[in-house]
Structure formats: C-alpha cells, structure tokens
C-alpha cells in the first residue's frame, strides 16, 4: 500500500473515549496519507481494547469531566461513528497495525484472545521503539 515507507506511530496510553476518539481519527488521517501506522497500546489504552469494552466505555478525561455528558450525548445525536468503527475503517483503507504492550498484559493478566480482534500481536517496548525508528511518534 505505502510506497514511501513513512512511519507514523501512536503510543496510546489513555483509555477514555475522548482520547480514543482522537487517536482513531489521527490514525485514520495518517493511513489516508499513506503512512505505515502503528498503534502501541499500553496501560489504559490496552484496557480500552479488552473484548467488547468499547461498547460500554463512557470513561472520559478527568480534567474535562464536565464535558463528559454533553460530549457523549452530542456524539449520539450527531451520529459520530464509534472510535472502534473508525479504526476498523482505517484498517481496511491502508496500513494500520495495533499492537499490545506485553508488560501491561502481564500486569493485568490479559491474553491476546481477551482483546478485540483488531489487535494483531503482543510486543515489547524495545521492538516498538525499533519499529518506530525514523518515523513520527505521538503519545496520547
């Protein structure tokens, strides 16, 4: 898919809907711009990818808690697609891989089969850093 081999990596540490949504949209933009995109799920980012969690996830950034209800409501009213469906669409469109942090998996006793099928593999921080080398990396 990608001809220029440019890499774009997201360290997804957060598991709140607002940040998951931002991450999914940014990842989609990067995929559209023909980047090789990797999302590295760690801590609460990984927790947000446990099977079916996204269907009931209404967690919201603490620092903007007062926006939680109106934001969740507007997303429903305006039929904003869920961040999970945005990610799935991005995956169909181009080069997007979602990888889980092995350390977080150990910490919370999570297995790859406990995660959403969009997560393709378990990796370590060193291999993530190695793969991300030379490209852009952002932390959400």
């Amino acid at each position, binding site marked *: 898919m990608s001809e220029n081999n440019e890499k774009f990596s997201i360290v997804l540490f957060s598991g709140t809907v607002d940040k998951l949504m931002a991450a999914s*949209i940014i990842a*989609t*933009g990067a995929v*559209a*711009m*023909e980047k090789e995109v990797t999302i590295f799920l760690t801590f609460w980012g990984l927790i947000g990818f446990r099977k079916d969690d996204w269907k009931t996830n209404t967690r919201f950034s603490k620092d903007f808690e007062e926006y939680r209800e109106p934001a969740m409501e507007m997303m429903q009213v*305006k*039929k*904003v*697609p869920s961040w999970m469906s*945005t990610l799935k*669409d991005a995956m169909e*469109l181009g080069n997007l891989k979602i990888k889980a942090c092995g350390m977080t998996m150990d910490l919370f006793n999570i297995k790859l089969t406990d995660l959403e099928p969009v997560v393709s593999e378990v990796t370590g921080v060193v291999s993530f850093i190695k793969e991300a080398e030379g490209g852009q990396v952002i932390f959400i």
Partner: protein
Amino acid sequence: MQSVTITRESDARGSFCPGPLMELIRIIRAAQVGDVLAVISTDEGSKKDIPAWIAKAKQEFLVMEEIEGATRFVCRKIK
C-alpha cells in the same frame, strides 16, 4: 458549472472528519482510471484535507465548489 460529467458522487453531508475523505477514498478505489468522482462534505476540515489527500494520492483535483452550506470536491482518477 462543471465542464465534465461526474461518474460517481458520494453525499457525505453530516459525516464527521475523516468521514468525507474516507468516502472519497472508497469511491476512488472502486473507480476506473478516467472516472470523475465527487464528494459533498459539510466538514470544514475537508476544505484543506481533501485537496491535500488528492495531491498526496497523485490524483487530479478538478474543482471545489460551495453548494448550500456544503462543499463539493471533484477529482479525476488518473492512476
């Protein structure tokens, strides 16, 4: 007014970023070289995003026009 005939148009009004661009990418992928594709968007960001994507994807950007509070983007698939 366009001097070209639109082969396929996708109405993505009301769809949020990056929805309209995704729509355009989908119809371009499904199209034949030479086809003229259009997408209508109400997302403000599309005005920058869609031309940027068309340039990146090396397709031919034809026109961007305002229609009743929305924008229509027209391009030709050239590869």
